[in-house]
C-alpha cells in the first residue's frame, strides 16, 4: 500500500520523462521537429569527427603523420581526443592481440553513441601478416562492428583521410532523426 501513497520526486521525474518522451516520439511534433533539425544535426555530426587517440602499431604512426602539417587532417575538423568519453570514432590501427581484446572492447563500450569504428590497415581488417598467429585476433570485426575498412600495410595518410571522408558520406547516408530515430 505504501507505494501508492508515497510518491517520490524521483518517480515523478521518471514518469514525466516517460510521458514527454512518448509524446514526442509518437506524436507529429516529434517527426516535425526531426524533419526540421535532421539535416542540421547530421551536418554537425559528420563535420566534427573526434577519433580516439589510440595507437597500436605501424598505422598509428601514419595516424600521427596525418595530423601533422603535410597531410593536415585538422582541415576536416578531425581532432584526436585522449579519453573515450569524448570520441566519436574508434580507430583501430594494428593487430589486436588476445591480451588486448577485452581492453579494446571496453574502450568501445565506454564511448558514447553515436559512434563508429574504422579498421585501419591489414592487421585490423584480417590479421594481416600475422593472420595465423596464436596470439592475434584475425580481424577486429570479430568482436566490434566495423563501419569503414582502410586497406594498406600500413595504410598511407592519404588513405586515412579518404577513410574519414568515406565515413562522412556514410553518416550522411544514414541520416536519422534525433527523436523518432527515423
Amino acid at each position, binding site marked *: 500500500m505504501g507505494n501508492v501513497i508515497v510518491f517520490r520526486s524521483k518517480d515523478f521525474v521518471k514518469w514525466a520523462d516517460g510521458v514527454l518522451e512518448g509524446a514526442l516520439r509518437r506524436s507529429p511534433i516529434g517527426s516535425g521537429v526531426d524533419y526540421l533539425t535532421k539535416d542540421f544535426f547530421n551536418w554537425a*555530426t559528420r*563535420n*566534427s569527427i573526434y577519433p580516439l587517440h589510440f595507437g597500436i602499431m605501424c598505422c598509428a604512426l601514419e595516424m600521427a603523420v596525418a595530423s601533422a602539417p603535410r597531410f593536415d587532417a*585538422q*582541415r*576536416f575538423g578531425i581532432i584526436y581526443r585522449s579519453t573515450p*568519453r569524448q570520441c*566519436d570514432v574508434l580507430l583501430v590501427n594494428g593487430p589486436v592481440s588476445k591480451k588486448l581484446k577485452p581492453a579494446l572492447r571496453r574502450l568501445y563500450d565506454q564511448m*558514447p553513441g553515436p559512434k563508429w569504428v574504422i579498421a585501419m590497415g591489414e592487421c585490423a581488417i584480417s590479421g594481416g601478416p600475422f593472420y595465423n598467429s596464436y596470439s592475434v585476433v584475425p580481424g577486429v570485426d570479430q568482436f566490434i562492428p566495423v563501419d569503414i575498412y582502410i586497406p594498406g600495410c600500413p595504410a598511407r595518410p592519404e588513405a586515412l583521410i579518404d577513410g574519414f571522408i568515406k565515413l562522412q558520406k556514410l553518416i550522411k547516408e544514414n541520416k536519422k532523426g534525433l527523436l523518432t530515430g527515423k
Partner: protein
Amino acid sequence: MNLFQFCYGIIHWLVDLINHLWYWLGNLLPWWFGDFFNAVGDLAASHGNIVVFTILLEALVILIIAVVNVLNFIWIDRKFMGRMFDFYGPYYVGYRIGGWLQNIADGIKLFVKEIITPAKADKIGFYLGPVIFVSSSFLALSTIPLGRNFGIATNPSGLGVPASALIAFAFFAIAPFAILISGWSSNNKYTLIGGMRSAAQMMSYEIPMLLTVASVFLLAGSFDFMDIVSAQHDIWFAIPLALGFVIFLVCLVAEVEIQPFDLPEAEAELVEGWTTEYSGMRFGFFMMTSYLRGYIGGALTTALFLGGWHGPALIPEPIWFLIKAYIVFVVIEWMRWSTPRVRVDQLLNIGWNRLMPLAMLNLLIAASMKTMGWF
C-alpha cells in the same frame, strides 16, 4: 544612454505595447473582470517589474556576447595555431568564412551525443560541477563593462556598491572549486589528481594576482571598473606598473589554466585531466567555458592595465575594448602553443618563491607612486 537605459527603454516600450492591447481587451470585458485586467496591467507596467525584465534582457545580451566571443576565440585559437604550425586550421566547414562554422558543428555534435554518467560517480557532485563552473564564469563576465555606456553591473542610479572589479575576481576564483568537485565526484584517479592540482594552483596563484590587482585599485582609488578605466585616461596602468602587468599576465594564464600552467588537464599524464569522465554537452560546456575564461582574462587585463575602452574616437568604445581583449588572448595563445608544461612542484615554486615577492614589490611601487601624488 547606457545599456541599462537602452534595455529599460526596450522593455518599457514592449510592456506599453502589450498593455495597450491588454487594456483594450479589459475594456471589452465586464467591469469586475476588467478591473482585474487593469490591475495586472498596472503591475506589469510598474518600475520594479520592468527592471526585472531589463535584467533578464541584459542577461541575454551577456549570453550573446559570451557565445559570439567564444566562437570567435575557438576559431582564432585554431587558426592562429594552424598558422604557427604550418597548416590551415579548420578549413572545409564553412570555407567561405574561413572555417568559422567548425565550432558550431562541434557544439551541435556534442549536443547530439549521448551523455554518460559513470555508475560509480557521485551523482550530485557530478551534475553540480559543470553548473558551478559555467555559471560562475558567466557571472564574472557580467561585471565587466565593455564601454562607458555598455556595462551591466554598473548601476546608473548610483545606488549600488561600486565594487564590480572585486566581484569579478570573486566569481573568477570560484571555478577551481567546481573543478575540484567534478574531479572528485567523477570517481576516477586522473580526475581526482586534476582536481587536486587545480586547488593547489588556485591557492598559489590567486594571492600574487590579487596583490597585483590591489596595486591597480590603489592607483585608481576605486574598486569599480568604471573608475579604474577612467583613471587610465592619461596613461595606461601597464606603463607605471609594468612589473605588475607581467605578474598579472602570468597569474592569469595559471588561473585560466592554459598551456604552460594547464596542469589540471595535463594531456600527457592525466588523460584529459578533470574532464576525463565527462561526455556530450557537459564536456561541451567545459570546453566552451574554458575559452570564455580566456576571454574574461583578456577583458580583465584590458580593463585593469590596458586602458579599457580608451582609444582614438574613430572606433566605438566596445570595439576598442574587444580589440584589446582579443590581442591579449592571442598573446596568451602564443604562449600556449610554444612552451612546454611545467611540473606541479615547479609551478608552486614559481608561484610562492618568485611571484609573491615580486607582487609585494609591485605593491610597494604602486604605494610609493600614490604617496608621491603622481596618481
